[in-house]
């Protein structure tokens, strides 16, 4: 099957008559990777569902602001990351949750009971370790470790310098390793 290019999607989105078709193709192409990125940040499926829907609604309403200076998927990941981090901040304010050891224990309990989590013991411990990171550092680690994204693109998504991202990733990796070995 021929791959749908970003240029083709953007061309469809530029015409009001083909806007919805273009949007559906955009979702078809990126929904899985965006969902995975959001889910790794917010963990819970229902939360991830809310965040991804809000993300695509924002994309639907603001696609004309995409100027083509960066890659389309970089722009999409930027919106998705901002939405997820905003959601987590809001949730923490409501629940007065903290990203410390008790939160990690709570995370393990929650994931064990989650029917949409099918990880083994090591994966569960990795999620617990990730839960100890601040939200933005967790986003840095996820984009580099799981998505294998170049720092330059991460810099566009997170609006942070490449040097700061390298340092953040380094510290995050060390914290996670220490969590496994403590």
């Amino acid at each position: 099957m021929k791959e749908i290019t970003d240029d083709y999607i953007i061309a469809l989105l530029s015409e009001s008559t083909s806007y919805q078709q273009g949007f559906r193709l955009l979702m078809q192409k990126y929904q899985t990777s965006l969902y995975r990125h959001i889910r790794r940040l917010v963990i819970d499926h229902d939360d991830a569902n809310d965040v991804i829907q809000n993300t695509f609604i924002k994309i639907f309403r603001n696609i004309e602001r995409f100027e083509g200076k960066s890659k389309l998927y970089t722009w999409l990941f930027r919106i998705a990351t901002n939405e997820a981090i905003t959601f987590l901040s809001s949730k923490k304010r409501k629940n007065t949750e903290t990203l410390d050891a008790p939160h990690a224990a709570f995370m393990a309990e929650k994931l064990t009971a989650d029917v949409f989590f099918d990880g083994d013991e090591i994966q569960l411990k990795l999620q617990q370790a990730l839960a100890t990171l601040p939200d933005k550092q967790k986003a840095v680690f996820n984009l580099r470790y799981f998505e294998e994204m170049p720092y330059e693109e991460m810099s566009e998504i997170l609006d942070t310098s490449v040097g700061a991202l390298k340092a953040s990733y380094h510290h995050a990796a060390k914290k996670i390793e220490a969590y496994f070995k403590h």
Partner: protein
Amino acid sequence: MKKEIEEELRNISPFLADLKKELADKEPFKTPKFYFDTLADNVIAKVESQTQISTPPQYAEPPNWISAIQRGLAAILQPRYALAFATAAVLAVTGWFFMHSQQPVSDINFATTEEIQQYIHDNIDDFDLELLQENGALADVASEDNGTENDLFGTDLEKLNVSDEEIERYLKENMNENDLKEFENNL
């Protein structure tokens, strides 16, 4: 690029580099069945419903100045402001009635004798004649008509064009002996 990222990770944490290989192709996060098949429809339906809610076609958006008034009224009609306004209104109305109820007393104090006499003259039918006589007001009013108190009665009897016999008969029929004696003494 992938190799570069892998080398970087191995330099930072060989443990995490090995862990990544171990966990490769094992995605722990699952979704409900057909989740991605319906996601686009759900998002588009949500966009459309939000658009309808934000700009309902049957209602035009009011101009800014109307919105400002509405916001102002909404602020004023908050319970604490409404209570303050109600208290102020009650005080204002009570004060107005109090001030105006005192007005006639103060007016009569400042009225001249001429003004009072003129008022009585214009509204003579409303006054008790005996009361006026007791207070000496009727004499003044009568004299203003260029006559005396008796002239006043005399003028009225002349206007009625009644004969002396008729008056005498009326008095006998309607007055007892004491009244007649008192009447004769007064003549």
